[in-house]
């Protein structure tokens, strides 16, 4: 401790009444507000508050009026290019709430009582007599319930609580069953199809599944694509119709699940642009086919740069090189984009030679 500081403790470290180096100046004198000292200002503030509350009334009336006046539905009224009803309702409600809020603030700050209040600090703990009384009550409860004297009741209660804890664990069963090998193959693999899909395939008399355009489901000829074309495509069974009922064979949840794994993109480039042997061997005249599902967390990716053949995922910017087996160039993805081996069927349409040779989409526990 430095010598030029005032002595605040005695040798036994018990506190002393500190000698204040400066006299306590006390609280500053109260300064009045203009509304306290000037009756005119007070009247004006009163009128302001009342006007704000009246504005709020007008806002509510406007709200009701715009609800009645403006047309909604197929051909709604517009103001500029905005929906008139929503806009007017919102503005009127805002005027009402703002008017009430501003009025209350103005009222409280200009007209309500204006005193400084001093609240002295006190110790945070309860007084000792309160603490003793509480402990006494707890002790009495323990004695009267006989929890210590009747171990049978105590132990059965503990057992009931413990078994109750098992219930949420049992419900975790709903997370299963484990996917098995479902994640290892996609609907590109004909051998994994359901009997209905197999029956439809029998009527087609072909061996290779075509790669068809998404949305419209039309098959693609090599000659239809120009260099630089990007096609968002699907396996043809997605668009298969039951020969009798003319209803889609794959539909509902099944369709969504299959689509989320089997969606692909086709991109045609100069064969001389292709770098890796696998990509070249699995392409047809410079047309390469890759999974559309990012290997990071499974976003659909079709954000391609024609000039560089880099495919970018819009979610986390993973970038894949379509000329080089889908190698990861940038971003958090850890695995290359799976390539689909492409070929041409007897009628000249692009088709898949087989399923992806590795699981598509994000990595998962069992994949290692």
């Amino acid at each position, binding site marked *: 401790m430095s010598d030029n500081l005032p002595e605040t403790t005695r040798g036994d470290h018990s506190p002393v009444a500190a000698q204040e180096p400066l006299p306590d100046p006390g609280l500053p004198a109260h*300064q*009045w*507000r*203009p509304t*306290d*000292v*000037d009756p005119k200002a007070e009247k004006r503030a009163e009128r302001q508050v009342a006007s704000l509350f009246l504005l709020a009334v007008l806002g509510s009336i406007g709200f009701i009026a715009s609800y009645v006046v403006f047309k909604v539905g197929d051909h*709604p009224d*517009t103001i500029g*290019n*905005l*929906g008139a009803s*929503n*806009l007017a309702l*919102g503005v009127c409600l805002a005027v009402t709430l703002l008017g009430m809020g501003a009025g209350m*603030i103005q009222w409280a*700050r200009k007209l309500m009582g204006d005193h400084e209040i001093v609240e002295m600090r006190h110790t945070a703990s309860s007084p000792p007599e309160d603490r003793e009384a509480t402990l006494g009550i707890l002790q009495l409860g323990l004695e009267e319930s006989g929890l210590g004297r009747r171990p049978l009741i105590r132990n059965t209660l503990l057992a009931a609580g413990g078994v109750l804890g098992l219930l949420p664990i049992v419900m975790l069963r709903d997370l299963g069953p484990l996917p098995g090998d479902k994640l290892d193959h996609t609907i590109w693999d004909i051998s994994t199809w359901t009997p209905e899909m197999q029956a439809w395939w029998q009527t087609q008399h072909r061996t290779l599944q075509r790669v068809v355009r*998404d*949305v*419209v489901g039309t098959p693609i*000829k090599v*000659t*239809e*694509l*120009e*260099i*630089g*074309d*990007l*096609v*968002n495509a699907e396996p043809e069974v997605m668009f298969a119709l039951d020969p009798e009922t003319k209803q889609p064979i794959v539909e509902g949840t099944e369709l969504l699940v299959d689509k989320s794994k089997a969606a692909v993109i086709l*991109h045609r480039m100069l064969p001389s642009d292709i770098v890796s042997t696998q990509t070249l061997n699995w392409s047809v005249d410079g047309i390469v086919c890759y999974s559309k599902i990012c290997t990071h967390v499974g976003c*659909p*990716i*079709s*954000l*391609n*740069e*024609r*000039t*560089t053949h*880099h495919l*970018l995922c*819009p979610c986390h*910017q993973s*970038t894949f090189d379509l000329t080089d087996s889908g190698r990861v160039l940038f971003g958090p993805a850890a695995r290359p984009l799976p390539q689909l081996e492409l070929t041409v069927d007897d009628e000249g349409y692009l088709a898949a030679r087989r399923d992806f040779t590795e699981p598509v989409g994000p990595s998962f526990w069992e994949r290692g």
Partner: protein
Amino acid sequence: MRLLNRPLGRLSRYRRGPVAGLLVVLMGLVLTGGLYAAFSPASAKVDDSAALAKEGHQLFLVSCAFCHGTNGQGIKTLDGNQLGPPLAGVGAAAVDFQVGTGRMPAVQPGPQIPQKEAVFTPTEIAELAAYVATLGPGPAIPNPSDYSLDGLTDEQRQQAIAQGGQIFLTNCTACHNFEGSGGAMPKGGYAPKIRGVDPKYIFEAMLTGPQAMDTFSNGNLSVEEKRDIIAYLQSIQNNPEYGGFGMGGIGPVSEGLFAWLVGIGSLVGIAIWIAAHTARSSKQKVEL
């Protein structure tokens, strides 16, 4: 008949006159020329396009050859990059798009050539397009009938818009945003906003794939599919913004973040400002 015959009868008196032969030859020539002009529009058009291309070549030499080469063969920089790409096979559609939207002639090289006021008049653009089309076969400028919904019933129109929406969401939204507001691309590039763009230019952009954009040739997306996409874009453009001013469709997370940070943040700021400011008078209260 007599009335009709009379002038002819009188005229026939001159049939052996000194200028009769000359007149007949003249009339024959005029008739032949007129008929030829009336019945041979095809050859007349060919002559027209050749003339256009010739004019276009002159413009090309002045305005484009610096980067694209005097024959449109393209020019490479010293480190192997393209100063201007070769233009053989890009077609008239590419020229109409690039020059019509002002992207070409470019002011300076860069990650992406921005859109600006068009420099050339429509006639000059047609001439340049005609010249570049002679360099190699490529997509032609689309017909307005290719992307117009005229002649369709209301139901067919609704179908076209619905189908176009599906195709748009599958093929275009990855770069251009789900309502066509555009988005960022790697290395300083960007996918431009495509709301409010002339349908012709949207069609041409799909056909030709400007800059880093993929092409969507007619073999990839058929003419009808392109028309449907354009119909969808126009339909969302005509939709009023029901919820007030839009934020460019930047998505729920970003819009929510904006509401929290800017909206609630400014409310907190206003509350602090109100609490920190108060009017005080220097006068003392007069006890009445």
